[in-house]
């Protein structure tokens, strides 16, 4: 293949005019496009487009039937307009009409329009499905491919419902053309991804696996994507693909560069397929069969060997394709993590790439090495490249590559090289791209904590971090340093000294002031002996920053001041003076004002003893997962931080937090939450009662811990037994309304969540769980958007099926973030057994006959109870009707009594129920009797109803 197609055309040569020279019509389209391109301004363009849209609209609406050519032309124009970023809200119907044309061009443009412009929930899907059905059965391969493409592009649930059973048949049928097979494979894959429940495994599964052996490489190429996806979800069913994939791979790898003809790409045989085969193998552990494994190892060795051979072409495409396979092979070797020999070879190969002149290869080598670093066989080998990686961090021109280098340094870090790596990362931070600073800060903070052997180094590192990149130091990071300093008394003096020095800088970051205020407030006494850092000097230093700080920091500083009064009685007068001045005691911010007032009062009326107790040094924090690590995990998404790393840090973190002299205290803390509350009460009393702005409280806990502690199960309001609609729950933040309807054993419930505040609720999630035997009663639940804007209401639909009779109601759990705090509440959904009642009318004689039939003692449940509500006849009738049963008149000989009959529909059976309610107005009592064909139902109904009257 030559490069002659890439001719550089000079501007003096006649320009090519594609539209007309191709002679395929659509002159109107070319004119329109040229018009648009000649528009001098955006306004002119919009004007021209609107004119065209009006024209097309009138043509579509006009009386004259358009011929296929014109329809095609207009649809093409619409596509072009859409590409320019304009909304297209018509033409869909015309496109659908084009689908049923017999002409290829018209059909094709119709499908194109639909795959670009129709989304999966369009109302037109049914019409489109019809056209697709016709094309699929047309036996014309071109039409079939168009239809399959359309399904794969739109991929809606309705389409899956219509075609999920048809596609596998097309895929494995013996007489299907290769090109159709290819399309069918990917079409099925798409349906499986969107609606896995509709694509049922069956006899076709094994035949799909055997497509790996297909003669036609294109079919294998398409099928392997399908097989990989299916294998990930059902590894056991598709196990046989491993040996087939190995033999296919082996045939490709050992073939000469000309064997595969068209599938040879720049002298590399079938690179794409090789990559995909190697990816497929990464879904499975190493093959157990010795022969298969031997063959695979041979393949991998051949691939590694080929990398050392001289290239067959100087073209970048050649080395690209070759290396694509090589990187996948290395990924597989890392995935198996069982062949030390191959692992070391892989590591050496990557080491070569680290210094390659191709930036792409350096990038990929850094990325692959990251995973290699976590293997115990190769961790040491990876570490030998540390200088190269550090160099990459310093000198790479491309930020993506630098980021990979930073990732790799993070991954290869251990006790032996932590100081070097952290120092390099810190110095890199000074010039790092803004986009990656926050992540770098988190990484440095984690490494410093994880591998700290001496804590003065840790404190230095974090303070440096704040100095260099204060803006990117999140709360988690500085909370953490405080937690650690509080928990380790051997570092407290050093921390106080260092932070004092850091605060000397004329412009220091606000985060530094926070750490400084907190640490000096706790441990300022440890350095007060030195006249250069006497109490008053410390106080003046802190207070010199006060006016430049934000409200939360000022609040923290006020708390530090009151702690100073306790630590150093000699500063009392000065500090009281500060607190007393108008800017504090009359501060417009309520939090600051309250702190100033309360601290002033506290310092003047409390005795030294009381003051000492209230303002005692902070107790150690309970051991818990590093909040920084949690933050990094959140940032990188699940899976980004490997499990080993997590466990590692727990182990190390434990040492850091609880290790040493104070270990036992922390370890014996019964539970973090209990301790949490303890700390809260020990916090400076003056602090406003847990207001959102109260910084000190924030340090002790993520609000989530507290609110989940106090997460009571909200009982079901009993009025919902006889009612289907209403407000289920309401507090200051949230209102939940329900509307429900039931038919036979099925029900549908609409839940309306209203945000009563003006602030957005974030991460709003709801889950429904069914206790015990109820497991599968909830059929489906629509997912919600995670954000609920202030004042907004969102709706969720719940489909319910009653499988068998039950007594516990399903539970609805709602979680969301309001402000910073996690809200968590669980309530019972008003799904009770009586919702599935069907009323049954019957005569008096029928009723008593059945009553007698249900005479076994366990079939009857009876309760005598005092009336809780009005005994008014109309109220009672309404309640009994609301229950779902038929209220039978003229049945009971005593007209004061009420009798009802109904059948409860469950999926498995029907339960007949008879009810008799005998009020005694004088005694304000009721006697309730139930007889049902199933004894558990009698008991449950009796319990439910007794609360109603």
């Amino acid at each position: 293949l030559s490069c002659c197609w890439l001719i550089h055309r000079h501007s003096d040569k006649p320009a090519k005019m594609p539209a007309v020279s191709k002679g395929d019509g659509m002159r109107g389209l070319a004119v329109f496009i040229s018009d648009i391109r000649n528009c001098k301004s955006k306004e002119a363009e919009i004007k021209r487009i609107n004119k065209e849209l009006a024209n097309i609209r009138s043509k579509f609406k006009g009386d004259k039937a358009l011929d296929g050519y014109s329809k095609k032309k207009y649809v093409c124009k619409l596509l072009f307009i859409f590409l320019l970023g304009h909304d297209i809200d018509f033409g869909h119907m015309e496109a659908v009409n084009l689908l049923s044309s017999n002409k290829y061009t018209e059909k094709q443009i119709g499908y194109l329009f639909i795959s670009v412009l129709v989304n999966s929930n369009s109302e037109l899907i049914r019409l489109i499905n019809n056209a697709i059905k016709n094309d699929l059965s047309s036996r014309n391969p071109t039409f079939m491919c168009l239809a399959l493409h359309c399904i794969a592009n739109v991929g809606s649930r309705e389409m899956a419902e219509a075609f999920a059973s048809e596609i596998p048949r097309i895929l494995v049928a013996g007489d299907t053309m290769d090109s159709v097979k290819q399309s069918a494979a990917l079409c099925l894959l798409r349906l499986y991804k969107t609606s896995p429940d509709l694509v049922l495994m069956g006899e076709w599964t094994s035949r799909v696996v055997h497509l790996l052996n297909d003669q036609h490489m294109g079919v294998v190429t398409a099928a392997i994507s399908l097989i990989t996806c299916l294998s990930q979800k059902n590894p056991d069913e598709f196990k046989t693909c491993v040996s087939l994939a190995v033999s296919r791979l082996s045939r490709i790898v050992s073939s000469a560069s000309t064997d595969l003809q068209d599938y040879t790409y720049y002298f590399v045989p079938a690179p794409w397929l090789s990559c995909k085969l190697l990816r497929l193998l990464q879904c499975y552990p190493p093959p157990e069969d010795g022969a298969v494994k031997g063959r695979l190892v041979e393949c991998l060795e051949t691939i590694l060997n080929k990398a050392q051979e001289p290239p067959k072409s100087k073209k970048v495409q050649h080395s690209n394709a070759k290396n694509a396979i090589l990187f996948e092979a290395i990924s597989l070797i890392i995935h198996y993590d069982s062949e030390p020999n191959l692992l070391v070879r892989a590591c050496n190969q990557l080491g070569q790439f680290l210094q390659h002149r191709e930036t792409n290869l350096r990038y990929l080598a850094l990325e692959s090495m990251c995973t290699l670093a976590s293997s115990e066989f190769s961790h040491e080998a990876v570490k030998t490249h540390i200088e190269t990686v550090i160099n990459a961090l310093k000198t790479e021109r491309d930020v993506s590559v630098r980021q990979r280098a930073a990732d790799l340094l993070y991954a290869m870090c251990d006790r032996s090289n932590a100081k070097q790596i952290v120092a390099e990362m810190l110095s890199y931070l000074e010039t790092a791209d803004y986009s990656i600073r926050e992540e770098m800060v988190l990484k440095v903070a984690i490494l410093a904590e994880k591998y700290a052997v001496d804590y003065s180094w840790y404190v230095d590192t974090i303070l440096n971090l704040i100095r260099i990149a204060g803006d990117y130091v999140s709360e988690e990071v500085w909370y953490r340093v405080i937690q650690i300093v509080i928990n380790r008394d051997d570092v407290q003096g050093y921390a106080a000294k260092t932070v004092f020095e850091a605060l000397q800088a004329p412009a220091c970051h606000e985060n530094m002031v926070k750490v400084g205020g907190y640490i000096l407030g706790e441990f300022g006494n440890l350095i007060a002996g030195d006249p250069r850092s006497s109490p008053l000097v410390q106080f003046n230093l802190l207070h010199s920053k006060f006016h430049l700080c934000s409200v939360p920091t000022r609040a923290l500083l006020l708390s530090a001041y009151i702690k100073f009064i306790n630590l150093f009685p000699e500063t009392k007068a000065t500090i009281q003076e500060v607190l007393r001045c108008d800017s504090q005691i009359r501060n417009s911010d309520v939090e600051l004002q309250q702190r100033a007032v309360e601290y002033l009062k506290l310092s003047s009326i409390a005795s030294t003893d009381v003051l000492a107790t209230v303002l005692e040094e902070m107790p150690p924090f309970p051991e818990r997962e590093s909040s920084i690590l949690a933050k990094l995990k959140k940032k990188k998404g699940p899976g980004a931080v490997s499990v080993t790393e997590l466990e590692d840090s727990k182990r190390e973190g434990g040492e850091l937090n609880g290790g040493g002299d104070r270990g036992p205290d922390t370890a014996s803390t019964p539970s973090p939450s209990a301790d949490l509350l303890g700390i809260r009460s020990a916090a400076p009393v003056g602090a406003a009662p847990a207001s959102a702005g109260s910084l000190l409280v924030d340090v002790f806990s993520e609000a989530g811990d507290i609110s989940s502690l106090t997460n009571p199960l909200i009982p079901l309001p009993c009025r919902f037994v006889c009612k289907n609609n209403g407000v289920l729950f309401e507090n200051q933040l949230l209102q939940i309304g329900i509307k429900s309807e039931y038919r036979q054993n099925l029900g549908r419930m609409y839940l309306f969540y209203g945000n009563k505040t003006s602030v957005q609720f974030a991460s709003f999630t709801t889950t429904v769980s069914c206790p015990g035997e109820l497991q599968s009663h909830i059929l489906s639940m629509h997912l919600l958007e995670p954000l609920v804007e202030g004042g907004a209401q969102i709706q969720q639909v719940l489909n319910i099926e009653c499988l068998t009779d039950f007594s516990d109601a399903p539970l609805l759990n709602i979680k969301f973030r309001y402000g910073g705090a996690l809200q968590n509440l669980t309530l019972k959904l008003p799904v009770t057994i009586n919702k599935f009642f069907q009323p049954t009318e019957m005569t008096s004689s029928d009723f008593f006959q059945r009553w007698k039939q249900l005479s076994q003692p366990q079939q009857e449940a009876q309760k005598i109870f005092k009336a809780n509500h009005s005994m008014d006849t109309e109220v009672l009738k309404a309640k009994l009707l609301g229950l779902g049963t038929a209220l039978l008149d003229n049945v009971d000989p005593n007209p004061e009594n009420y009798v009802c009959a109904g059948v409860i529909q469950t999926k498995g059976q029907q339960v007949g129920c008879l009810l008799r309610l005998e009020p005694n107005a004088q005694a304000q009592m009721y006697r309730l009797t139930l007889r049902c064909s199933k004894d558990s139902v009698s008991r449950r109904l009796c319990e439910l109803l007794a609360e109603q009257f």
Partner: protein
Amino acid sequence: MIKAILIFNNHGKPRLSKFYEHYNEDTEQQIIRETFHLVSKRDENVCNFLEGGMLIGGSDYKLIYRHYATLYFVFCVDSSESELGILDLIQVFVETLDKCFENVCELDLIFHVDKVHNILAEMVMGGMVLETNMNEIITQVDAQNKMEKSEVMCFVTFINQCPCLDICSMQGHCFAFHTASASR
């Protein structure tokens, strides 16, 4: 999986956008803008991969791109795809376009959006790769062209009678792919 395939020129004008996951029109346009912004500020000779923008899903997705003269070809893919493999795929795509349009240039993409979509559809379907063999793709496209030709014969006469378009007004836009940048 390939999440989106975008082609835009050096000024950020979209020339092809194909999303394999549904977004509304506004988001699609924003994604194109965001992607252009991310890709266009990069120097030549840096690597061809970068993390996806926020709109497309952030660091779970990679943008893999090639810059040919006035056009950027960008594939947004998830972690299941081989980066170098996708680069090869872009090359196959461009070579195929070049064969089909006989020295492809930006104008071809503008005036034949439908054809470009068709060619792409022979390579990628529902976000997965259907075929990587250029000859096979071209065979399919040729077969379609033949069918098309036989159907539009009646219009050719009509077209030929029309006066030619003002070619000069377009010369300024015409260009070709540079050998140098394409060989990377």
